[in-house]
């Protein structure tokens, strides 16, 4: 017959194991944050950090500006053009398949095994007279948008990192 102490030890061990599993699941979910976020557009969020992220990619891919975290008619046209060119269903909704397509354009700035601080991924499109670029921060940030000057508009601040996962436009600091 197990003693009370044995039951307590077994219970404590179970709780500890559950906590470890939860931490691992949370870490995995954080690394997949880019594609697990909510839809953007008339089908979902029309303001906030996810909108900033989508607009930042659409700036590079279609010339959409400004990036201000507010979904509007221009943003929808840009999303449709992006979807059409990439073979996606053209509905103006930045859903999981569109997020994933956008994610594939993000290229690490640093060695894959090195954790850059701050903006560490870039989307770059060749354009007449130069290039259109959008930067993102992954490490330590669970993804954040880094919008260049001339493209960002209030409440989005250029050269700051805006959290992708927040309902509002929230600046975060990713450097350790």
């Amino acid at each position, binding site marked *: 017959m197990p003693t009370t102490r044995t039951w307590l030890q077994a219970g404590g061990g179970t709780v500890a194991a559950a906590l470890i599993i939860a931490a691992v699941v949370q870490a995995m979910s954080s690394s997949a944050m880019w594609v697990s976020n909510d839809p953007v557009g008339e089908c979902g969020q029309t303001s906030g950090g996810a909108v900033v992220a989508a607009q930042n990619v*659409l700036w590079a891919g279609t010339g959409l500006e400004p990036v201000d975290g507010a979904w509007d008619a221009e943003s929808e046209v840009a999303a449709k053009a992006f979807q059409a*060119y990439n073979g996606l269903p053209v509905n103006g909704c930045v859903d999981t398949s569109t997020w994933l397509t956008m994610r594939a354009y993000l290229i690490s700035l640093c060695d894959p095994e090195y954790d850059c601080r701050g903006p560490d991924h870039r989307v770059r499109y*060749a354009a007449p007279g130069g290039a259109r670029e959008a930067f993102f921060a992954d490490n330590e940030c669970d993804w954040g948008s880094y919008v260049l000057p001339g493209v960002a508009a209030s409440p989005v601040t250029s050269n700051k990192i805006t959290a992708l996962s927040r309902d509002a436009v929230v600046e975060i600091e990713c450097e350790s």
Partner: protein
Amino acid sequence: MVTTIEEPRIRPEWLLGGAVTLLGAIIIIVVTLILGAREDEPVVTPVDATELTAGTCAEDLRQPHWVPKTVQRAAAECPADISAAIGRTTAEDHLGTWIIYPLEGEGNDETFSGGPGLSWPEDEVRSGAYHPASAITYVAYPGSTELSGELSGDNVTVEWSDLADSGREARVTRVDNNGFGPVRVEWTDDAGSYLLLGTMGRTPEGGSGPTVAELLRIADSVAAEDE
């Protein structure tokens, strides 16, 4: 009887007329040759793609020796350029070097007219008529031994393909949207890790951008001059 034969005299006006005629003929010939040379100037595809980065900060970079014929030029971005573009100091020692190869030809040029908005007809937007320029992006991370994190999702396929000449294997990641979408080819060797990115774009003409086979051939050519 002495016969005096007068030598024909060259009259000065003949000399002047001849000189003017000769000069005119020379001008016509030279102009014709110059214009003709411009019209017939052949499209020069370099024998070795590394020539495209000669004189840039990437000229000594380990890079492709072959690119498709639709590539006529390249733009290089080195760590200092990228760090400056971000507007803040980043660990330049760990930044990759980028080479962008724009593709020429029908369907590969940017078609935007102003920013996206209601002036873009809906049916044209849906057909893929408004699209960016096609380009192949090559990034080298010297000294690196790893690839980027693997993508996954319903419309993502990941396969490993042999690079026949170099004996390496490349990871090919496609976001396959009905045959279109971005393609990433990534691999490593003893000198570093590498990435190629291209888009198989849907346009009214059918499609644009490189094929997967072309990207793999570019990747294989990086090791073309290895012993």
